[in-house]
């Protein structure tokens, strides 16, 4: 690529190619943090600075009220996600970080779908819901709201199936995760 500080002109293609080092492997990163103001900003800021796009983010309490868990999913090259993890460790309020191995991890997400369902297709929609063990939590004349939990992939699949009926709105929490077996997450 063109050398920095010199007048060599950079082609746009070169410039864009240089940035595309993502492997596409999905990472689920679980972070335990002290429950203090500004911690979330510090963490997301760090990801932004290193050029990572956070796909989902979920924050909630843990069994210890002074500690919160942040779960986020993102794509990244293995090399540089290690670098972000190490940088995250340097934040004083971060207690623990795990880049979870998907095969060792239980991940779940909750989603709410508002689907148009007037007389004609209502039964069909409800059938799809049943297959996905989605709960119908609200019904109106023209729509119904389904609640689904599962992995990101399952929810993606549900979305694909109900979209043709008319998807009015969708809200997803982003995955939370915990490791299988006895080891702590």
């Amino acid at each position: 690529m063109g050398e920095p500080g010199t007048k060599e002109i950079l082609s746009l293609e070169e410039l864009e190619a240089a940035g595309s080092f993502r492997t596409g492997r999905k990472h689920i990163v679980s972070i335990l943090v002290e429950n203090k103001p500004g911690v979330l900003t510090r963490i997301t800021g760090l990801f932004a600075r290193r050029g990572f796009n956070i796909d989902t983010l979920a924050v909630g309490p843990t069994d210890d009220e002074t500690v919160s868990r942040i779960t986020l999913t993102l794509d990244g090259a293995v090399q540089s996600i290690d670098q972000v993890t190490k940088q995250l460790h340097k934040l004083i309020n971060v207690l623990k970080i795990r880049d979870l191995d998907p095969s060792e991890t239980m991940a779940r997400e909750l989603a709410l779908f508002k689907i148009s369902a007037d007389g004609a297709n209502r039964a069909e929609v409800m059938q799809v819901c049943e297959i996905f063990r989605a709960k119908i939590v609200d019904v109106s004349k023209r729509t119904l709201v389904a609640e689904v939990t599962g992995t990101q992939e399952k929810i993606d699949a549900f979305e694909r199936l109900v979209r043709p009926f008319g998807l009015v709105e969708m809200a997803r929490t982003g995955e939370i995760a915990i490791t299988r077996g006895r080891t702590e997450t």
Partner: protein
Amino acid sequence: MRAVDALMECLKAEGVDVVFGLPGGANLPTYDAFYDAGIRHILVRHEAGGGHAAEGYAKATGRVGVALGTSGPGATNLVTPICDAMMDSVPVVFLTGQVRTELLGTDGFQEADTIGITMPIVKHSVMIQHPLELPRAIHEAFHIARTGRPGPVVVDIPTDLSRADIPYEPITDIHLPGYQPTTDGNQKQIRLAAKALANARRPVIYAGGGTLDASAELTELATSDRLPVTCTVMGLGAFPASHPQWLGMLGMHGTRTANYAMDEADLIVAIGARFDDRVTAKLSEFAPHAKFVHIDVDPAEISKNVPAHIPIVGYARNILPRLTAEYRALEPDPSRLDEWWHRIRSWQERYPLSYVDSTDSEIKPQYMVQALYEASQGDAIVCSDVGQHQMWAAQHYHFDKPRRWINSGGLGTMGFGLPAAMGAKVGCPEATVVCITGDGSFQMNTQELATCAQNGIDVKVFIMNNGYLGMVRQWQELFWDRRYSQVDTGQYPDFVKLAEAYGATGLRLTDKHTLVDDMREALVTEGPVVVDVRVAPEENVYPMIAPGQPARNMVG
């Protein structure tokens, strides 16, 4: 007592003997407490000057520096020193005033989101939410700034909270569950490193800013055999430049010997150095034959830019003595290094640092530094600004001890030099403190001359006046077809008159034949002195690794 009086007690308990700052509305309570707290406060003329002074103090003494500013503009003026301290791992605690809590978030008068603005450039920061938190927050700030990889910590104090009446108990039990730096170094890794070193035939020690408090230990390791040593611009002085095993500085403007040695090394022991791009040059061709031992207190530095074969996390001063002991125990054969030294000596002979001196009385910038070295008998604390003068100072003033060379490396902040020198002089009143600056850089914090004059802070400023933003001019000359765009600073201002206006002594030197004597005189003149040294305007810093090139293609 008032929270601000507790703050004073905390500062005293931390051993703070001086702070640098400037008051305003939001830190009036703090300044009221300073009135009779018995802590020396130096009133600067710009908060950035105070911030860099605190850095200079910290770099010269190894202790934590302290800088203060009010809310809003006071805090934003501190942003550059905060970032500078982050980049160069300088322990400084910044105390900023903040608007009273009921105004927070309302765009109140002189409100700035100091924590938000500085978040990416601090080691840690905290805004006080309750007056009772203040003492602990202050002690935590010092603890964090000083330990592990040192760095800046910002404590933002809303003005109403600072006036609250609180009970004060000294705090000694700092415990931060999320902050437990690894400091000792793993013994097994140390043993592995010793073995690698004993087997190496072309080893180089590459020492950085992280070795400044492990200078004796570093020297001990190097001299336990004949291990060649090079330092980054931040590490200069950690290993004595007069030692026969010294290769000179490495990197973009380092010596050919140091860079060629890295290029051909089979083992590089990096100690407290972070493989900056000014050092590695073209990363894919950096030290292609070497395996790397990397000793650093910050695990995030390990394998950040260059994969480490043997990482060791901890303080250099803890690790090096054990590495030396393990190395000695292996009784490595010193003669295995003969061939390597032969090669190194041949580079040293062929490529000494050199320049073409003038044939008349014109002062070459390199000679200016050599003359200053001679006039100060190599025994000054040298603070520098940023530009060509910085590189020439690094090349030609030879540092035999650590903390004698103070500069802004990572951020490269013009305007760092004078206030840093001021802070260094306050921290080391017995030392001769000089500032080598440029005509451009000096103007970025000249106002601190007033602080020096008022407080009798005896710094000697030597302006390498080339009439240019010289470093930028050099790049335009070499890489942009000599299209000199906005680098000519002309003859402004008249630095001698300016010095006098500030209450300092001003001198102008133009003749190389009398330069050493004239400089000697400047050094013994009482009070702050500004010496305008007119040098050859279009000299370039060499040798140089051109951008994008590997070290072996150095030019000049």
